[in-house]
């Protein structure tokens, strides 16, 4: 009976499996489990790619002129004399507890122990601060500018916003970063051209040094966010339910936020998540341009010195962040789209 009878309605029967009672939690648990499996596969890939592809790690670290004795001794220190699977399991087991092993390069130089984890701590924190501030600015700016452009679609306000963000976004990070240095340091001399953070101090102690790196990252990532929010908003603003709300005289503000933006959010969140992922790559370049002591700089140095352990550690951490952001975005979308949420 169409008038009274519920269609496929949620029937409330008392004791049921928790997965039915808390479908959203169950979804999250499923996604995290899948993410862990993915991370495991990634870790194996990282490990075998770095350990096996270049040949003998100790040889690579020590260079061509190393004596067979020193190679053998480093192999022993790095545990290379054990079977590769055992080494992988050990490495992974330690990595889970935050121990990424000793820096191969420093061991090669004779150090007794040189845990990568402690060396990585500070660069990681610095990068997270840089990326975090960028993300905190990028999200509201994407929405504000995107909604602004959408409500003025086809008018000058839209053209200026869209065109400016697009032109800036079209520059590679190093070009835009260099341009900013040119303007704000060479011409105006108001901001420092590098963002050096002495070891042991926080980058927040000298916030003006962060301005240009953040501006560069914003410049290259904002365009995609604005475009998506604008496009999504325009689509929703043209939808039937927005037209009906207008015809039936609902307040403009209510229509804009609760009817239009609310339904443009999910697609925007996906794009913004991708933007954040892009940021993870972009930050390596931007850190180099501004000589900022973050993970990017650390990774570049590790690659240059062939510090296999350090490369593995950074790669694994970046992969974990990558996967977490994807899970978070998927989860938010499901929470925000009733059709997806109620069908879990």
């Amino acid at each position, binding site marked *: *009976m169409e*008038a009274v009878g519920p*269609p496929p309605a949620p029937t409330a029967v008392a004791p049921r499996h928790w997965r039915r009672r808390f479908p959203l939690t169950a979804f999250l648990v499923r996604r995290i489990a899948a993410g862990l499996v993915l991370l495991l596969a990634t870790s194996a890939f990282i490990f075998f790619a770095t350990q096996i592809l270049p040949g003998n790690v100790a040889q690579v670290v020590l260079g061509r002129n190393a004596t067979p004795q020193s190679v053998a001794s480093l192999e022993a220190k790095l545990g290379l004399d054990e079977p590769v699977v055992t080494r992988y399991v050990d490495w992974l087991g330690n990595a889970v507890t935050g121990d990424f092993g000793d820096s191969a390069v420093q061991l090669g130089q004779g150090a007794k122990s040189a845990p990568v984890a402690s060396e990585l701590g500070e660069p990681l924190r610095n990068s997270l601060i840089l990326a975090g501030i960028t993300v905190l600015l990028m999200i509201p700016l994407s929405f504000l500018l995107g909604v602004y452009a959408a409500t003025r679609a086809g008018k000058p306000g839209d053209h200026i916003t869209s065109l400016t963000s697009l032109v800036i976004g079209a520059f590679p990070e190093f070009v835009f970063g260099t341009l900013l240095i040119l303007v704000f340091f060479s011409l105006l001399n108001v901001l420092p051209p590098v963002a050096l953070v002495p070891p042991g101090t926080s980058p927040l102690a000298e916030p003006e040094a962060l301005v240009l790196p953040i501006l560069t990252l914003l410049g290259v990532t904002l365009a995609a966010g604005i475009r998506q929010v604008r496009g999504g908003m325009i689509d929703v603003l043209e939808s039937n339910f927005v*037209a009906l709300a207008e015809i039936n005289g609902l307040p403009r503000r209510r229509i804009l936020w609760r009817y239009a933006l609310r339904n443009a959010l999910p697609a925007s969140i996906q794009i913004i998540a991708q933007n954040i992922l892009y940021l993870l790559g972009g930050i390596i370049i931007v850190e180099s341009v501004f000589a900022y002591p973050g993970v990017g700089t650390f990774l570049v140095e590790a690659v240059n010195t062939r510090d296999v352990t350090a490369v593995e550690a950074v790669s694994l951490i970046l992969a974990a962040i990558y996967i977490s952001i994807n899970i978070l975005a998927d989860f938010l979308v499901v929470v925000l789209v*009733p059709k997806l949420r109620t069908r879990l």
Partner: protein
Amino acid sequence: MSAEEKVALRVSGLEVATTKGAAIVEDVSLTLRQGEILGVVGESGSGKTTTALSLFGYASRGARVERIAVEAEGERIEDPRRLAALRGEALSYVPQDPGTALNPSLRVAAAIEDMLRAHRRGAEGRTPGQWLESVHLPGDEEFGKRYPHQLSGGQQQRVCIAQALACGPDVVVLDEPTTGLDVVTQARILRELVRLRDEEHVAMIYITHDLSVVAQIANRIAVMYAGRIIEEGPAEEVLARPRHPYTRGLLASTPDHVHTRPLQPMPGIAVGVGDRPQGCAFAARCPQRQDRCLAAMPDLLEVGAGHRARCLEWERTPAPAAAGGHLSRRDLAGDHEVLLEVRNLAAEHRSRRETVVAASDVSFSVAKGACVALVGESGSGKTTIARTIVGLHPVAGGEILLGGESLPADAKKRSSGQRRRIQMIMQNPADALNPRRTIEWSIARPARVLGGMGRREAGAEVRRLLEAVRLSAGIVDRYPHELSGGERQRVAIARALAADPEVLVCDEITSALDVSVQAAILELLDDLRSRLGLATVFITHDLGVVAHVADFVLVLEHGLVCEQGPAAEILARPRHEYTRRLLESAPSLSAALEAWQTVGDTPAEAVLEGTGPGGGSVLDSSGG
């Protein structure tokens, strides 16, 4: 309903034009009294939706309200921009497609709450739950917390109606509110509207292309053609004694399952915006045209009590054809050769989580020249059966025989000869034709691939087929978007014929078309059947159409055959409860006119009164 009721809305001198200056709607004036339902009827492009929207000061992209005068709430507004003040106050709107008209992320009760909060009169009185109850939806919290996608189409439309009423308007404008809903739901919504008109004392403007629907509920009818009202008057007058030849033509094109008579398609097609002639816009298609009709647009002339028509020759408009007449229904008892046979067919829809039975134990056979109709509501499995026959949907059981030999289930495994012999025509001709290929290419393709014709031979065949479907050969170089919906469907039919088939599977081929175009397509199909001896499987939800085309009918519900038999038999003496319900719900013009003559009420009122007080019992009596 008395004529002395207060005027709820008066619109005069409405002009809407494209931003380039071509008139879309011209000289439209409407008067609506309290507690009255005015049916505005017209085919696509007649300007009926544009008219409705301009009352709200709303124009779709590319259009502009040039002139309007609206009297509502004792105020006269002439500035289109100031009409926005009436939105949700004096007027509210119920849209065509409830599925897209509700905010997908807003709970049902909150959607009504929005209307209550935004409007002066909405704040008084009832809660969202009570408004839901007023349209016979559950008013409890559980229901109010649902999202639109958790409702059926009929429930969604009820929510839209509750929303439109909640702001306490004088007039509710309903734009094709039941198009896209199945007939049973449609009948319920129509009864609901009549009840609400009487209980809430609102006036309604009901816009539709379907005369048999408007006959169910309207007190007065205005017929639109090419942007103008061409006839208006009391509903019974207009339907029983149409004075404009276009109204008469529409009536003659409207299928009817109660008293079926041959359809009489109107010649020609409607004039588009920008092509309108100086004189009467209908003159080119009019059988009673005189020279003076071409000189100037006729005024609306008084042709009866409160009945006006925009025709100089209105006195010559013949009375509508009486029911009866000869229908070219074929005799099934004859020893016609059976072409297609479906035996115990079963089909399923599989998704990750569940398997839904789309058809189960369906058996029928189609003889040469015969037409078998598969009837049912959406979800009854009728389209799946059609797709199974042509090999587009996997068979879960049973078999399909063509000319006595069993066909492989998958179209890819059928020989080109087998594929040639069964052709399908789809519901939406706009999607079924390749938009980047010319008409000639599209029609020639099956002739070349399946018929093995050479380029020149196929070219000649295309022209022959275009003539067969009554299209001019001049369109061979055009692309689908340059044709009208009816023309595109004819091209699709020509393409199916190009394969020289023996069986034609038609899936709702007229449901996207206007009634006058539908009548022409049905007539064409009938003609092709008798000339070429085509066996036809006709899928439809429209019992009126069934009455006109089918020799044999299968009534389907949830993939099961409820009833099957000769069309005349099923329509006149349905045995199954579901068939009966479908037949009762399907709107019929002739039945509506009869109801007027005997009861003096609109049919929906008669139904309401016939079942005693508390219309709810009618609404709740049948499951679904």
